[in-house]
Structures are given as structure tokens and as C-alpha cells.
């Protein structure tokens, strides 16, 4: 056990956790933000993708202790109050989600991908989503959503 402290969606969260606590459990169980999901146990589905110090990571494959002092954004921290992030907006406009379970991870991956490469191509989007599995959409509309999100975020493609 030991105390950890990190910034989660702009707010400092300090908790006593066991050393073997996964970051995703810290977020879901200790802080109670359940938008970050767990869909597999081999670090492949991407339902738990969050941003840690600005880069996308799978929260199921990091110990909470490893994130001591980090600045974390989860799906709950993406919108600006009632105003959706352009990528969230794009997923809504383009029907980029169905059951919604993979959606938080998809959106978080997409945001990072586009932040790094605003003029992203369809092939690059498909490759960039390698770590996120969706069973509902066949990815067609997710790819359209990311494209549209990139345009909203200033991309030219």
C-alpha cells in the first residue's frame, strides 16, 4: 500500500492504493470514473485507452504507481463542459459508434493520432487504430469519423 497522487482530468486525485493496483482500476474503482472500459485481458482491445502526459496508453497495462505525478485525461475529461471535443462531435455526426463500449478508447486514440498528424490519410487512420477493436461498426464509420474529426481539428484531408 502507499499513497499516490496524480492529475486526472485537471483535478489532483490522491489515494492509498496497493502496489499491484492497475491504473485502470484506480480510475474506475478508486476515483469512480467508469468511462474507461476493460474489454480484454491481453492488452489488445483498447477499450481502456487514456492519455498519460499527452500520449495514448492502455490503462490496463500500467500500474497506478507508475503514473505517480502524471497528468491524465480520460474520456470524461475531453469535452469542454457541455461542448463536445471536435472528435466526439465527429463520431456523433458520422455514426462512429453503436454499442458505445469501445468508443472511449477509440476516441482517445483518434485524438492522439490526429493531434500528431492533422492531415492524416484513411490508411494511416486504419493503421493507427490497430490497438482498438470494435465489434459493431465494421470500422467504416469510425474511419469516417476520425477523418471528419481531423478536418475539424484543422487538418486538410
Amino acid at each position, binding site marked *: 500500500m502507499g499513497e499516490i497522487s496524480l492529475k486526472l482530468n485537471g483535478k489532483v486525485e490522491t489515494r492509498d492504493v496497493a502496489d499491484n493496483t492497475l491504473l485502470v482500476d484506480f480510475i474506475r474503482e478508486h476515483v469512480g470514473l467508469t468511462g474507461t472500459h476493460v474489454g480484454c485481458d491481453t492488452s*489488445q482491445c483498447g477499450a481502456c485507452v487514456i492519455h498519460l502526459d499527452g500520449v*495514448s496508453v492502455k490503462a490496463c497495462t500500467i500500474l497506478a504507481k507508475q503514473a505517480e505525478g502524471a497528468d491524465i485525461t480520460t474520456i470524461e475529461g475531453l469535452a469542454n463542459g457541455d461542448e463536445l471535443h471536435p472528435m466526439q462531435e465527429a463520431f456523433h455526426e458520422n455514426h462512429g459508434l453503436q454499442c458505445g463500449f469501445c468508443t472511449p478508447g477509440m476516441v482517445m486514440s483518434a485524438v492522439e493520432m490526429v493531434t500528431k498528424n492533422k492531415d492524416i490519410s484513411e490508411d494511416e487512420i486504419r493503421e493507427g487504430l*490497430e490497438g482498438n477493436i470494435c465489434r459493431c461498426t465494421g470500422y467504416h464509420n469510425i474511419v469516417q469519423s476520425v477523418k471528419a474529426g481531423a478536418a475539424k481539428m484543422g487538418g486538410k484531408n
Partner: protein
Amino acid sequence: MYSTKYVKPNSTTEALEAIKSLSEGKFLAGGMTLIPTLKQRLASPDGLVDISGCKLDSIADEGETLKIGAMARHISVAESAVVKMAIPALAKLADGIGDRQVRNRGTLGGSVANNDPSACYPSAVLALKATVHTSNRSLAADDFFTGMFETALEEDEIIESISFLKPTKANYVKFPNPASRYAMVGVFVAQFGDEVRVAVTGAGEGGVFRHQEMESALSSNFSADSLSSVNIVSDGLISDLHASAEYRANLIKEMTKRAVA
């Protein structure tokens, strides 16, 4: 995950002390293999020594060699201007490991120390005549990998950095396992003047290996055509659900052809 103790030292010296104080401690680098294993309860170390605070993530062009710190994340290697200039094939390899989240966390040292038979990096280490610098010695790549998941590393030894010899020409081509996206076959070809080294990962039962026949064929004529007459034997190649040894043998030749094309 079984309960365990987490420590994060600030130097390799402290890390080595920490590991000695544990009966069955494990170094934690990027954790991309170790943490999934722990989650499945397939190991129960009494402590994890996180070496991410040990300042082992530098990337430096040292003239003949390119030196990369063990804790350099795949993404850093993939995006490094220094790496792209010195050994672009190495940046390409790093850019194709796992998915973007794995690349954002996984490290060179972690991958090389684990020596998973399907990992990408060991092929680069072997083909690029790398030297593995550990906390107490330097090892030539040819002496470092000793078998599937096995290396010359001792339990209380840390990889600090790896120096890759800059080749005249190099390329890495991988055929991913369709499910796991690990290398089902990955071939790293490096040319150093008249010498060519071909390292194959994903395919050998004993882990990464050099392919002498292809090396000599390419040394005399660095072209895809020169490989046509090389017979790739399937003995000693991995056979699993996804690919038989024979199919892997075919992929080894095909990926090598693509690497030199």
C-alpha cells in the same frame, strides 16, 4: 495480480540494490509483456523495480555506432531524427512494433531482455552487430541471445544501452501474426560493405537467429534474385496454429526478398 511491492529507484545502482533485496524481483521497463503476465497470475515476483527513473533513455549518434538507451520507448526511436538519419530501418522497425499504445510505453531494453521469439527488436540487435551494454559488462549481440526467452543476462543485471553499428544499407520487413500482430516472421537485413547479416525473428524455436545461407548469397550479390536458389529448411522453425514451419520457411525467403528489393 498477486500482491507485490513496487519501487522506483533513480539510478541503476539503486535499482541493482533494490533487486538484490528481493528474493524474486523483476525489473519493470515498459511493462508491455510483464504486466499482462502478472495480471494473468502467471508469475509472482515479490517486487517490481521500475527502471524508468534511471535516466536510460538517451539516443546518440556516436559516429560508427548509434547508441540507444534501454528505456527509450519505441515511439522515441521511431520518431527520432537521429535514428532516422543514422539507421532508418531501425526507426521503421520501431514504428511497426505492436500498436501505437504499445509503442508509447514499450522499450528497447525491455524487448531485448525478454527475447520473445516473436519480438522485432532482437533481429535488429543481431543484424546490426550491436553491442549490449549492461550494468556490468558489454556483450556482442552474437553472444547475447541464447535461446527462446533466454539471454546472457543475469537476474541482477540491467541493460543500460545498446550500440548499433551503422550499416551501409539495412531494412526490416515483417509478416505479422494476423491475431496478435507479433512478428510471425520478421527479417532484418543489414549490409556492411561486403558483409551482409540477415537476422530472422518470429520463426525460430530457439528465438532470433542469423541465416548464414542467405547472408552468403546476399554477400556475393545483394539482390532478391540471388535468394532464389537458397533453400530455407523448416527444421527448427516454429509450428503453431497460425503458421506451419514450412509456411514460415516460405515467409522467411519472401520477407528477405522484400527487404532487399
